[in-house]
């Protein structure tokens, strides 16, 4: 595997994560719990889709198809997003916890990518670092509110954490070129990312009175990075690409 193939593999999983979670979170638009939160969550969903476009553009520069083509014409098994991002929005407890777990991972990932030896990627990472930092502030504020709020809010957050922790760990599924990415200084690798993520999210969850499941029960649910997805991804793609499928030249 050469550098370019390794780099593309990395870029696809980053962009696909952002596009899919962005689309999922946009499903809350008009349905958010209160007006201000509805706007905040929608705005961040839009941010994610904007970030993905920048990464798809980097892929385009490396010879892949146009961003719209890449985003709207692939099937589920051609997507590299982690399974966490594709699950239905569920109740707000799940969507918020996913937002928390995902955005801290992305924040640390982009923090590292700012130093990437691949300059175009380092530039994109620098550009979006602050935006993603705000996403983590939003997520953490909510998790703290609900984790330390009422018995009901605490129990609901704890329940979601227990049920989806292993899916979240699947975000750090290693790719076929980890060593190459690390040795070339492109990215620190999924293992290191997971370690740093745990160092950040575990104390925050604890501060929010939430307990991470015991380490001996951790079994990352992987597959997303190699195109193995839950039954939820294809319906999302069908809905997301509906207009494009009717008229690929439609402009809006």
């Amino acid at each position: 595997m050469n550098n370019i193939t390794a780099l593309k593999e990395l870029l696809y999983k980053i962009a696909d994560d952002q596009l899919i979670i962005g689309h999922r979170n946009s499903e809350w638009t008009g349905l958010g719990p209160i007006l201000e939160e509805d706007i905040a969550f929608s705005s961040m969903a839009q941010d994610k889709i904007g970030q993905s476009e920048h990464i798809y553009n980097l892929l385009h520069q490396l010879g892949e198809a146009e961003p719209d083509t890449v985003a709207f014409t692939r099937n589920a098994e051609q997507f590299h997003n982690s399974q966490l991002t594709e699950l239905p929005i569920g109740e707000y407890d799940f969507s918020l916890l996913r937002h928390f777990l995902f955005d801290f991972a992305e924040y640390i990932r982009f923090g590292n990518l700012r130093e990437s030896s691949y300059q175009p990627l380092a530039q994109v990472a620098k550009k979006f670092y602050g935006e993603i930092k705000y996403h983590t502030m939003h997520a953490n504020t909510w998790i703290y509110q609900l984790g330390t709020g009422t018995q009901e809010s605490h129990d609901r957050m704890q329940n979601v954490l227990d049920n989806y922790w292993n899916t979240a760990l699947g975000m750090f599924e290693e790719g076929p070129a980890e060593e190459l990415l690390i040795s070339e200084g492109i990215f620190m690798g999924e293992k290191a990312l997971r370690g740093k993520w745990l160092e950040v999210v575990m104390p925050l969850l604890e501060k929010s009175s939430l307990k991470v499941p015991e380490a001996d029960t951790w079994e990352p649910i992987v597959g997303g990075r190699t195109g193995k997805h839950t039954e939820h991804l294809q319906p999302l793609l069908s809905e997301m690409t509906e207009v494009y499928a009717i008229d690929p030249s439609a402009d809006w």
Partner: protein
Amino acid sequence: MATENNKTVDSLDPRISRAKISSGETSDMDNLVHFQTYEVFHQKKRGAQHQHVGIVHAPNPDMALLYAKEQYARREQTANLWVAPSSCISATEYADDDIFSTTPDKLYRNPATYKVMDRIKAFKERGMKSTDQIEKSPH
């Protein structure tokens, strides 16, 4: 309350249909009474004044800051935001607004009308240093 009305809203928008929103009365204002309003102040650049831009509705200052960011710093250049509970604001009474009634007459208090402004402007235009001699203004 919504005992008879278990029908859910059916919409062309799949998100709405998926949400299974009851078509009956669903709002429960009692759950929102602990929310308060916060006044939001926006600063464009470091060193500039914070300017009042509006309010947000939030349960506490942390959440109010998040919402202020979305509501008032989403499009504009921003250096900093303040929020303060609306209940902390003391205000004059509109009934007493006659205390301001003669203010528009007191143009002499408005520095824009000072004759010296012409000279300051001319000074700036010439890009002079404060130690330079300025010619007497024709005024």
